[in-house]
C-alpha cells in the first residue's frame, strides 16, 4: 500500500497538482498579507472568495469571456473589501465581525443570488462553456524539458499569476511609497498620521487590494479549479489562507511557502484517498492539522526569538 502511495507521489503530475491546488490559497494568503500589513484582520476572505467566484463566473457567462469574468471578480472583491472597510473604519464595526458577516453572505447569500440571477439552485451546472474557463498555457522552452516541463508547463494563466503576484506584492510592500505607508500604518498608526499619512485612506486601499486579490482566488476556483460554481466550493480555503499568512510571518514569500505546504497536504489527501483501506475522512484532516501544527511551530519559534531578544537586552 505504501509502495502504491509513493509511486503516486513521486510523479510529475503530483507536483503539477500541488501547484494547481496551491494557487487559490496563495491568492488569498497574499490578500491576508496585505491586509495584515496595514493592521487589518481580513477574516472575510472565505466569503469574498465565494462571492467573487460566483460573480466572476456570472460575468464570464454573460459576456462569454473569461477575461471579463476575472476582471469582474477582481472588481467585486475590491468592492467587498471597501464594504468591509466602510463598516469597520467608518461605522466602527469590529473588523472580525464585519468579516464574519461577509462570510455569511458568502455561504447562504451566494445561493440566493445565484437563484436570483439564473434561477438555478446550488450550482451552475450546465452553464459552463469552454469560453468562460480560464485557458491554460504551454511555456515554450520549459515545455520541452522532460520532467520539469510536465510539472511547470500547461497550468492556467492565473496559476502563473499567483506566483508572479508574490513578487508583485513584495514589490508593492517594500519598494513603493504606498507599500511603505501600508507598513507604517500597520506598525504604528499614530506615527504614520503624525507625518501626514492618511491612516484611514491607506487602510481602505489595503483592504480593497486584499479583496481584489481574494477575487482572483475566487475566479480561479469557479472558472478553472471546479469548472463552475457550487455552494461550499471554497471549503475553508479562505481560513487556511489566514493560517498561511500567520505561518508565513506575514511576508509574501513566507505566505507562498506555507501555501505550498497546504497545497502539498491537500494533494496528498487526494492521492491517499484513492487507496484501499485508507479513511478518506482522516486523510481530509491533513491540511487542517498541518495548519494547526504549522501555527504552533511558528508561535514557538516566535516565543523563542522574543526570549533571546529579552536575554540580549539584559546582557548586552
Amino acid at each position, binding site marked *: 500500500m505504501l509502495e502504491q502511495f509513493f509511486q503516486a507521489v513521486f510523479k510529475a503530475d503530483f507536483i503539477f497538482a500541488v501547484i494547481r491546488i496551491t494557487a487559490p490559497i496563495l491568492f488569498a494568503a497574499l490578500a491576508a498579507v496585505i491586509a495584515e500589513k496595514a493592521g487589518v484582520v481580513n477574516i472575510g476572505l472565505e466569503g469574498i472568495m465565494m462571492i467573487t467566484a460566483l460573480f466572476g463566473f456570472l460575468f464570464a457567462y454573460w459576456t462569454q469571456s473569461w477575461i471579463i469574468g476575472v476582471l469582474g471578480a477582481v472588481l467585486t472583491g475590491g468592492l467587498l473589501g471597501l464594504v468591509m472597510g466602510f463598516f469597520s473604519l467608518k461605522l466602527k464595526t469590529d473588523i472580525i*465581525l464585519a468579516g464574519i458577516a461577509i462570510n455569511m453572505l458568502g455561504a447562504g*447569500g451566494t445561493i440566493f443570488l445565484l437563484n*436570483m440571477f439564473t434561477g438555478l439552485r446550488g450550482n451552475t451546472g450546465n452553464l459552463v462553456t469552454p469560453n468562460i474557463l480560464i485557458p491554460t498555457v504551454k511555456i515554450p522552452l520549459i515545455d520541452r524539458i522532460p520532467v520539469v516541463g510536465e510539472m511547470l508547463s500547461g497550468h492556467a494563466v492565473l496559476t502563473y499569476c499567483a506566483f508572479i503576484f508574490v513578487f508583485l506584492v513584495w514589490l508593492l510592500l517594500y519598494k513603493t511609497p504606498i507599500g511603505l505607508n501600508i507598513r507604517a500604518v500597520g506598525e504604528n498608526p499614530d506615527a504614520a498620521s503624525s507625518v501626514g499619512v492618511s491612516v484611514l485612506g491607506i487602510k481602505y486601499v489595503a483592504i480593497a487590494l486584499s479583496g481584489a486579490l481574494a477575487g482572483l482566488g475566487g475566479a480561479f476556483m469557479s472558472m478553472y479549479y471546479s469548472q463552475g460554481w457550487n455552494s461550499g466550493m471554497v471549503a475553508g480555503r479562505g481560513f487556511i489562507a489566514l493560517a498561511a499568512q500567520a505561518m508565513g510571518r506575514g511576508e509574501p514569500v513566507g505566505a507562498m511557502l506555507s501555501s505550498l505546504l497546504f497545497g502539498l497536504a491537500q494533494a496528498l489527501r487526494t492521492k491517499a484517498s484513492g487507496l484501499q483501506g485508507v479513511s478518506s475522512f482522516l486523510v481530509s484532516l491533513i491540511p487542517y492539522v498541518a495548519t494547526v501544527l504549522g501555527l504552533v511551530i511558528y508561535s514557538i519559534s516566535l516565543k523563542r526569538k522574543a526570549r533571546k531578544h529579552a536575554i540580549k537586552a539584559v546582557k548586552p
Partner: protein
Amino acid sequence: MRDRRMVFFGIARGAMAIILALAVGAVFIFLSSKTPFTALRYLLIGPLLSFHDGSVIFNAQYLFQIFAAMIPTIFTGLAVCVMFSANQFNLAGEGCVLAGGFIGGILGVYLQINSGWHAVVCVLAATVACGLIMLIPALLKVKLGASEMVTSLMLNFIILYVVLHYLNFNFADRTKGATMTKAFRSTAVIPSLVPGNSKMSVGFIVALLATALIAFFMYRTRWGYAIRMIGINESFALYSGMNVGWTIVLAQVIGGMLSGMGGSLEVLGRYQTYLWRELPGYGWVGITVAILAKNNPVYVPLAAFFIAYLNKGCLLMSTHCDVPSEMIDIIQAAIFLFFAAEQFLSGFRQKLVVKTATEDLMRLEADRGSRGGGSHA
C-alpha cells in the same frame, strides 16, 4: 435625564439597525420575487399568523417550532457571549455543537442506563468533552500566543472529519440507506414539552436555566467580572493582579461546554438517530445572537427568538413563494454589520449628548444664579 436619553438612543439604534436589515432583505425580495408582497407577508407575520379564506388564525404549532429552534442557538449565543466578552474570538462553537451532538448521540445509543438519568449523563458527557476540546485553542493561545481565531477555525474542520470518520467506520447502521447511527434508546431521548410535532423539548427549559446561570456567572461572580474586565482592558486586568491566562482559558472552556450541551440537547431532542454529516451552522448563528444581545446573556433568548422567527419566516417564504430560504443569510449579515457598528447613527447620538450637556449647564447656571442671589440678600 441623560440615562433615559441614552437608553432611548440604544433602543432606537437597535430598532433602526433591524429595520435597515429588513429593508435590505425587502429590496432583494422585490428584485427576485414575482409576488413580493405575499413573500413579505410570509416573512414578517407568517410565523405567527396564517391566513385561510380571509380569516386570520394564530398558529401555536409554529410558535412551538420557533421555541424549539431557539434551543441550540441560545446555547451557542451564550457561549459566544462568554468568549467574546473576554475578547476571545474563538469560532469553534460550530465544531463543538457537532462534537457534542455526536458524543451525546453515541452515548444515547450504546450506554445502558434504565432511567431518565441516561439523557442527563449523555448531555453532561458531551458538555465536559466539548469543554476539553476547547482547551486546545485556549491553551495554544495562552501558552504560545497562537491566534485562537485561526486554530478554532481549523478545529471546526478537524472535528467534522473526525466525527465523519467514526460515524462511517464505527457507528453507522448499515441497514439504513443514509449514513446514520442506530436509534437512540428511549431513555436517552429528551422528552417533548408540548404535544404535536414541534420538537420543543425539555431542552428549552434547560436553555433558559443556562441563560440565568450564565447571567449570574458573568455579572455576580468574580470570575465573570474577570472575564468582562479582560475584554474591556486586558492590561488593566493584568496589572491589577488578575490571572489573565487562566481566565482566558476558563472563558473558552465554558464556551465549549455550552456549545456541546446545546448540540447534544438538539440531537437527542430533535432526532431519533445521529445523522449530522456537515457542520450544522448553529455556531455562526450564535455569533449573530450574541451581537444582537450585545454580549449580555440576559438578552440572548430574546435575540435567539428574533433570529428563529426570521428563519421560520424565510422558510415559509420559500415554501409558499419563489424566494429561496437562504435570504436569511443576507438579512443576518446586514443585521450583523449595522448592529455591531459602534458609530452607526453617531451624529444623532452626538446631538443628544450636546443637548443634554447644554441643558445641564443651563440648569447649573440657573442654580448658581438663584443661590448667588440668595447670599447677596
